[in-house]
């Protein structure tokens, strides 16, 4: 029995180590989640303001014929997929990648009909394994990404639409609801469609002209939307990791409790057996 006991003890120790790690990861993710949420909130005024100005131009001057606002026949679709660099975040990456892959399979017959941009190592490896060519990839982003980090890939994706390389651009990311709920979302980024004007409308003067201002603003706005999706994706990543690691810690605790019980039983059995042996030995001598 002693041998079985040693094995159980070793197994308990290994589970305790795992639990320590998952617990630490949970706490780190919780701290980072708070920071990511703050960043997402801090980015909101910029996006809101830009939307406000664009909608007042588009609705005011009747120049809503801008190519970025109206849809055209779709021959090729662009996808910009936001994933994380690191795993151990539950279904965070798997969910969004599966969604994108299914959409691609459903809507496109040949590889000429879509172009994929990807942020994050997990997404890159996923598409590479499936021999899906990537137009552009970015990995190794920090946990609190700056706008300049993704400016290039966002600008390239938007430019691809403007040049007519593809006729619509979809953004795939995990939408953040709260720490335990993140929903993989596929959203059409371009064409922007009709932007709803919200509330008060100011009669602006435009310099040099409304069209020129719109030409500058619309690509910037699209890039900004990519950035806010990235920030939301980061918040989701930490939320998902926090939940996953919390569950792992809970499971480890449960396993340790069960194993401890088995260990104690085995110990008790060994003691009982020893006593029985001693007693029978003593009886035999009488």
């Amino acid at each position, binding site marked *: 029995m002693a041998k079985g006991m040693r094995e159980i003890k070793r197994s308990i120790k290994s589970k305790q180590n795992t639990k320590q790690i998952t617990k630490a990861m949970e706490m780190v993710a919780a701290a980072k989640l708070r920071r990511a949420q703050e*960043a997402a909130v*801090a*980015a909101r*005024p*910029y*996006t809101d*303001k*830009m939307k406000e*100005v664009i909608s007042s*131009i588009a609705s005011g001057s009747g120049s809503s014929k801008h190519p970025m606002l109206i849809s055209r026949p779709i021959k090729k679709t662009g996808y910009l997929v936001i994933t994380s660099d690191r795993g151990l975040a539950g279904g965070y990456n798997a969910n969004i990648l599966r969604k994108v892959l299914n959409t691609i399979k459903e809507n496109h017959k040949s590889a000429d009909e879509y172009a994929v941009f990807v942020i994050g190592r997990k997404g890159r490896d996923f598409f590479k394994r499936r021999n899906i060519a990537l137009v552009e990839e970015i990995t190794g982003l920090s946990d609190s990404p*700056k*706008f*300049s980090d993704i*400016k290039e890939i966002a600008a390239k994706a938007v430019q691809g639409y403007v040049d007519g390389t593809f006729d619509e651009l979809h953004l795939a990311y995990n939408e953040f609801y709260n720490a335990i709920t993140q929903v993989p979302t596929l959203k059409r980024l371009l064409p922007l469609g009709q932007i709803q004007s919200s509330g008060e409308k*100011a*009669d*602006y*003067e*435009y*310099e*040099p002209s409304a069209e*020129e*201002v719109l030409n*500058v*603003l619309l690509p*910037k706005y699209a890039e*900004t939307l990519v*950035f*806010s999706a990235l920030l939301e994706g980061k918040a989701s990543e930490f939320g998902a990791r926090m939940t996953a690691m919390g569950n792992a810690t809970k499971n480890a605790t449960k396993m340790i409790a069960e194993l401890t019980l088995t260990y104690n039983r085995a110990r008790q059995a060994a003691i009982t057996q020893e006593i029985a042996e001693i007693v029978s030995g003593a009886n035999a001598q009488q």
Partner: protein
Amino acid sequence: MSTLRLEIVTPERKVYEKDVNMVVVKGVAGELGILPHHIPLVTPLKVAPVKAKIGNTNEFIAVHGGFIEVRKDKVVILAEAAELESDIDVSRARMAKERAERRLAQKQADINAHRAEMALQRAISRLETAGDK
């Protein structure tokens, strides 16, 4: 003396928020001085320092592009990056300026030249903001 509220916002945070007497910016169509009760206006900006006048003092903010929205008593500048005078690393900006100038002198492919040109503008704007010309 009447004031207007100046806000400078980047995708990352609100860089600047203060009541000022006058704002001077460099728009794509030329330099603009904005006093309170200006007509509502929207224009893209060049990479250049923004001057905010409060009483007799001037504050400079390096704003890298973006655009300005003027309202009656409020001015909002939306830029991808903006730095206050105190946040600028002068020696780094000077190095960046030299590097960009070297690249421009070499005249490589068009994209590189464009990037170097932008980097040069940013560096000059930073140095001007920091008062080191």
